[in-house]
């Protein structure tokens, strides 16, 4: 179980905060939906112990992440920066990381092969020489092979073809423990309709709601009473409401388009 308590993050003191007092609790299968630059990845970095919070706490199974050391299996992630230890080929990375993180290399290879990354190919490429989609498959395979109590997947569907997306969506539904998937794509609401979902805009988290409730709601400008969620983006207030008014969230395809909806 992962809990964020009033989390704020600022990379440099002159810059705008990336996270602004985020409160959220992730248990079971969860979605974190937000446009690019909203703070999704930063929130994952805080839970991974990589970015220190300016204020607040990130708790993993009740323990402050800043105090955790040597806790094998407590958390796994597909953040690519985590897999940047050696100047070795991708195959050696799988074997090395499986050993260090307590993962199963065969499980990782099986997953990667299903997404088109064969072992021979991995022997010939460094991780940073893989294409965007291949690299995503590589890091996601490594993260899932750990079977951690908590798994964070950052945009796992990005740059995958539709058939692979569908296979991965099915695969993720069978992951045990807490799994948090972040994405800016709204199609995930359909296959994951029973997942707990938070929206994140400009460093502020909104929720939780069931993905199915978001699937059936429409985006309108302004504050509406009894809205499923009301959030702010670019200084404007939006509400997700039931009924016929506004556009279905899935019609936006990506949450980046909320900003376009706010124009005019």
């Amino acid at each position, binding site marked *: 179980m992962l809990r964020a308590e009033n989390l704020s993050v600022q990379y440099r003191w002159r810059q705008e905060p990336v996270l602004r007092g985020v409160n959220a609790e992730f248990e079971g299968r969860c979605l974190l939906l937000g446009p690019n630059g909203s703070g999704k990845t930063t929130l994952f970095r805080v839970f991974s112990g990589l970015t220190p919070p300016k204020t607040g706490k990130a708790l993993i199974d009740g323990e402050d992440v800043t105090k955790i050391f040597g*806790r094998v299996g*407590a958390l796994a992630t597909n953040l690519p920066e985590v897999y940047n230890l050696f100047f070795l080929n991708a195959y050696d990375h799988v074997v090395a990381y499986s050993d260090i993180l*307590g993962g199963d290399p065969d499980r990782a290879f099986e997953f990667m092969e299903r997404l088109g990354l064969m072992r021979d190919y991995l022997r010939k490429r460094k991780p940073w020489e893989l294409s965007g989609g291949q690299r995503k498959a590589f890091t996601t395979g490594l993260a899932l092979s750990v079977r951690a109590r908590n798994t964070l997947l950052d945009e796992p569907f990005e740059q995958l073809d539709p058939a692979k997306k569908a296979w991965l969506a099915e695969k993720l539904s069978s992951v045990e423990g807490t799994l948090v998937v972040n994405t800016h794509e709204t199609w995930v609401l359909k296959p994951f309709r029973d997942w707990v979902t938070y929206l994140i805009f400009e460093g502020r988290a909104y929720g939780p709601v069931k993905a199915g409730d978001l699937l059936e709601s429409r985006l309108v400008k302004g504050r509406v009473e009894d809205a499923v969620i009301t959030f702010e983006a670019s200084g404007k207030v939006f509400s997700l409401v039931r009924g016929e008014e506004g556009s279905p969230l899935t019609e936006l395809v990506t949450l980046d388009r909320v900003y376009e909806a706010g124009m005019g």
Partner: protein
Amino acid sequence: MSRYAYYKLKDMITNVEALAWGIGFIEFWVIMWIFVFSPSSPQEAGWGEAVVKGNIAMAYSFLGILSMSSAAVGLTAGIYRSSFARRFITKFGRLGPASLIAEDFAGSIASIVLFAGVIFFSVEALSYARWGTLVVPENPVGVLADLVLAGIILYWIAYDIAMALIVARRVRGVSGGSMLSLIVGFIVYAQLWVSFGKAAYAVPLAPVPALLMYHSLGTYPPIGAYLLWLTGAGKVEAIDLRLAALSSILWVAALALIAVVLTRKGGAVSVEELGM
């Protein structure tokens, strides 16, 4: 014990960039020292075998340390850039901060020995090619051990600089910060002309040239100003070799301890912060 050390070793001996700094750059300095900075034949310059021996001893003592310092520059930058991964595996992997440091060191030591070997044998081989005289040091194992000791001290200096930059979140300081190892190397190099006196025992790496001189020539060297001593142009205070060795060992222990503390304290440097 994980297999980190094994993969670190594999990384070090297959990493083209590390090899270029650790071997290519060393060879460049060795060639410059022997073929450009030294006279073409000992007889022409009025040199006897003893002088060639002194020249080789200086090559080990100062060129060796300078070359190791150059290799340490790449090490700092590498640690800095992999800070995310290092941070993550100490939290959620089988390696805590102390065991990561121990395994990283174990994996790196083999490459330090390799670099020391390259310096030793290339100085010997190229000196022979230049002057036709094979001058073996008085204690070759001692010379190799001293070169490895220099590499170990520089490894910890490079590690601590990277971690200190991360802890202080001086994320733009990596290019300047990584050069600190080289600056330390040049401070030690300055002892060819000047003597730090007893302060040399307090400067990391500074007493190592004396150890190298001793194992190369078999005579007690001074505490600094080695050219003055080798040419017999002046009198310089003799070094206490036991104190020199103790100082080096204490520096290794202190720097390793600092590395553990900084690894526990340090976060990681993200791509956004690096401004890449």
